[in-house]
């Protein structure tokens, strides 16, 4: 993949900062107000419908015997699936070194979070008594000392979705730290400076920061990859551990995951087509990016098609009359219209992406992405409703129809999703500036620099001496020169991580991995202990003929808690090793410190001991081509 095409060549570091930051800084447009009032009114509808539900009961939905799960779970799975693209883009494509992800990852990660919020609503309200929802969390409830049933995939879901939400939030936030610092440094108003100052935790872009940050990012990516797969796997277990034909099939886990990625990418495309047009991001999110996303949709859509085919084939192959009936009923029964909608939207429509012309036509891909979103909603509907509506006994056959409450709740969840999104694009940097900058390579000097320094340095060097460079290479040369002159206490402040700087500064590899591993071990051990002790010791109760404790059913929750704890280890370990949050630091006294989060590469020669030669340090910086060399007080 040619990197050149991934961000237009005329874009500079400062250009990236400006393009992305300005969106959050300029006056709120009228269109935004109009949009948020529309989406906001849907949120009100959602609130009204949920209120009605709470006061009346689940009967306001169309669910009825034999279809006890319908739109609620369909929408839950639909939203969770949408969320998967975010983590896929940020984690899996990162590990696969697919660098085109940088322009879209922040956007997709935000989408993940909001989708998880929307998804979480459904199981929460479906429990019947949502004010008792805390009973889902591992603590003995009521006076009975009852514990949760850890053998139930529904409880696995609670752990999976809450872990996923938490880790996605951490991933998103950690990834945003450098950009929040950029917004802080650009802030004009005091309010913005305080808000972004607090949010960025005092991020300075120091070489030490970047070292641990990059390691934290790598670990989070490594953890999120199996996590994102586990989430939809566990969602698929909700159905597949049962004995219902149409639900109980072993291909469900990977098939659900592929479908989730498929629908998630479709949603990214839908939103991105609009966002890049409205905010003028065509230079950062190029047609190349859109093309790649279409390819991902083609691949995942084909995997989903493979799974459909295998299911139909195996139903035939099994010779099991119930299996055969369910699939025949799907294709020809009362819900055949939904099934064929699903096939058309999910399998046939994306085949158009084989053609390059289609992958590069924004209107066509926009239309197709919506078609796929519709298709993936129908997929969940088909799986859930068609498998239930014809029970084993023909006397309990039925046909599900949604009520207006079902419909308005679903529409309201879209309103919530879009409202959160509008808030995000209005107030936060929607493109990862530091990551995009790291991809730009040539022709960066923007010509804004001041003339070379001539006046002798004055001031208090109690912290050290700082100078700024225009390119990473100049910075690296200066680091090497400083070390050869015996200045060993150096720090570099840069807008993105500079490769090779740790080596040049003589720093070791980050030890953050040990933090994460230790925490992961603790999470793993406590999850096993929790499930064994509650299930087999504290409250032994045979459920569904399952053993009181078995490794088979304890693996999902053990996995989730391991990942959760290890992610905490990585994020909080990174903050601890970096000494963050630290809102004040002497380098902030430097007049042009804001350049370090924009387009300049700052080198600090720190005052290491009594014999610190500030003058010599300053001369060295100037001789290496630094501008704006200054003494910085403690």
């Amino acid at each position: 993949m040619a990197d050149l095409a991934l961000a237009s060549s005329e874009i500079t570091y400062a250009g990236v900062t400006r393009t992305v930051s300005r969106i959050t800084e300029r006056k709120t447009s009228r269109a935004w107000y109009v949009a948020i009032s529309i989406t906001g009114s849907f949120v009100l509808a959602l609130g009204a419908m949920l209120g009605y539900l709470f006061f009346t009961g689940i009967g306001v939905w169309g669910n009825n015997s034999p279809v006890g799960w319908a739109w609620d779970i369909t929408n839950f799975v639909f939203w969770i699936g949408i969320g998967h693209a975010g983590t896929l883009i940020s984690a899996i494509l990162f590990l696969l070194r697919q660098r085109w992800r940088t322009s879209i990852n922040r956007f997709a990660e935000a989408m993940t979070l909001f989708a998880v919020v929307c998804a979480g609503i459904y199981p929460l309200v479906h429990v019947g008594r949502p004010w008792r929802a805390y009973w889902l969390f591992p603590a003995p409830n009521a006076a009975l000392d009852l514990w949760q049933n850890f053998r139930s995939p529904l409880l696995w879901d609670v752990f999976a979705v809450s872990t996923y939400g938490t880790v996605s939030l951490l991933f998103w936030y950690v990834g945003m730290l450098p950009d929040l610092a950029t917004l802080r440094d650009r802030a004009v108003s005091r309010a913005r400076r305080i808000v972004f100052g607090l949010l960025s935790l005092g991020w300075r872009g120091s070489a030490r920061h970047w070292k641990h940050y990059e390691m934290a990012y790598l670990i989070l990516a490594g953890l999120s990859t199996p996590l994102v797969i586990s989430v939809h796997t566990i969602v698929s277990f909700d159905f597949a551990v049962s004995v219902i034909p149409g639900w109980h099939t072993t291909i469900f886990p990977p098939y659900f995951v592929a479908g989730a990625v498929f629908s998630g990418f479709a949603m990214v495309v839908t939103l991105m087509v609009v966002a890049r047009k409205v905010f003028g991001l065509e230079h950062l999110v190029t047609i190349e990016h859109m093309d790649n996303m279409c390819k991902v949709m083609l691949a995942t859509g084909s995997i989903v098609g493979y799974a459909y085919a295998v299911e139909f084939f195996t139903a035939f192959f099994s010779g099991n009359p119930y299996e055969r009936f369910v699939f025949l009923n799907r294709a020809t029964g009362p819900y055949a219209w939904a099934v064929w909608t699903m096939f058309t939207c999910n399998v046939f429509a994306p085949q158009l992406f084989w053609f390059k012309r289609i992958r590069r036509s924004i209107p066509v891909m926009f239309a197709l992405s919506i078609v796929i979103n519709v298709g993936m909603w129908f997929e969940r509907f088909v799986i859930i409703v068609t498998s239930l509506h014809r029970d084993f006994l023909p006397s309990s056959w039925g046909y599900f129809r949604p009520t207006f409450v079902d419909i308005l709740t679903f529409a309201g969840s879209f309103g919530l999703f879009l409202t959160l999104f509008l808030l995000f694009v209005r107030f936060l940097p929607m493109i990862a500036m530091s990551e995009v900058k790291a991809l730009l390579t040539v022709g960066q000097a923007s010509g804004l620099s001041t003339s070379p320094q001539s006046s002798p340095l004055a001031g208090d060097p109690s912290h050290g001496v700082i100078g700024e460079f225009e390119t990473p290479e100049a910075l690296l040369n200066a680091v090497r020169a400083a070390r050869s002159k015996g200045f060993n206490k150096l720090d570099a402040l840069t807008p993105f991580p500079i490769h090779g700087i740790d080596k040049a500064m003589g720093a070791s590899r980050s030890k953050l991995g040990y933090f994460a591993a230790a925490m992961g071990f603790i999470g793993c051990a406590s999850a096993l202990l929790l499930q064994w002790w509650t299930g087999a010791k504290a409250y032994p109760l045979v459920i569904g003929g399952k053993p009181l404790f078995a490794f088979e059913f304890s693996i999902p929750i053990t996995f989730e808690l391991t990942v959760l704890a290890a992610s905490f280890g990585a994020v909080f370990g990174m903050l601890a090793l970096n000494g963050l949050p630290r809102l004040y630091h002497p380098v902030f006294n430097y007049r042009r410190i804001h350049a370090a989060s924009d387009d300049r590469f700052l080198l600090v020669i720190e005052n290491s001991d009594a014999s610190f030669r500030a003058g010599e340090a300053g001369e060295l910086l100037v001789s290496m081509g630094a501008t704006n060399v200054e003494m910085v007080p403690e």
Partner: protein
Amino acid sequence: MTHPETYILDERAWTRGRNIIAALAAAGVAAAALGWQSNPRQFFASYLVAYVSFVLIALGGMFFVMLQHLTGSVWSVTMRRVMENVMVTVPLAAVLFIPVALGIPTLYEWSHHEFRSQDPVMAVKMTFFNPVFYLARTTAYIAVWTALALILYRNSVERKKAVWWSGPGLGALMITVTMASVDWLMSLEPHWYSTIFGVYVFSGGALAFVAALTLILLAFRRAGVLATAVTVEHYHDLGKWMFALTVFWAYIAFSQYLLIWYANIPEETIWFQHRLEGNWIYISGTLLMGRFMLPFLVLLARAPKRNLGVLGFMSVWMLAMHYLDLHWIVMPTVDRHGFHLHWLDLATFMAVGSLFALAFWYRLKGRALAPVGDPRLEQSLDFKNV
């Protein structure tokens, strides 16, 4: 940066290698033929395990070649020709299928007329389960693989576009491998079915291919070929793939096992029951420990993936586990007396393996072992993990 390597195995080394492999092949084939006469039942079962093991490695190679084309990956360009050489041994699968075809009455219960007519479930599956249709399907799979392998190989050597073929090719490969695993392996227990089975078999094959590729590259390295072209950085990436596929295989295996364990439907659990009875339970345990836990723990950290000794050992280990996995799938259906290794297991493994190796070896004669014309080769040679 200059890379003085010629990438061509010198004549003498090639001949020596050929002689060793040919000797192994002769011994293996002779022993296997002897076994065919003396103990046909054991022979056919052992042969099927060996056959599927090696075919899956070649197909794993095809999967990787197409994947590299589709993702435009740079790191793997130096070793792509070796991948292609493994892949292009696949036409041999046609000839080597003959013993399996002759073994149908021994291996597959469904081929017995009385079995089909007495079993009500089988009665509805008659159309699918008859030797003629079975052979026709197998012929189709091997024809697809052969065509794909030759096209991909030729396009790569002639530096034509291989990307175009890789997309549809990957789809065709997935479908044919799934169907082949249903026909060759799943139908050994004709009542049993599992929708994930094709993915399970294929994920194991892809993993075995990465192990085989690593071993081949390490052997070349020892012989002084591709020694500077495939650096520790490339091995590191191979180690990552080995790790990732180990986890993927475990994920698929766990999904299949958990869902069947949990639902507890007799017609499904019987398959695992056969593999947990008697001393088979130790083999199931060995697969859990040896095919997942050990490689997971060993390959998790960075250092072992960059240590060629460790990586070499893990490759041999993973290949052994690949064989054991297929043995565990096939043998309990043929032999109800528990796990035991028969000398015919070794003989068939040697015979099939060395014939595939010979096909691989003949491609190397006088040809470059790296895609020298690929414009991305230089970039790949300088590749570094960050």
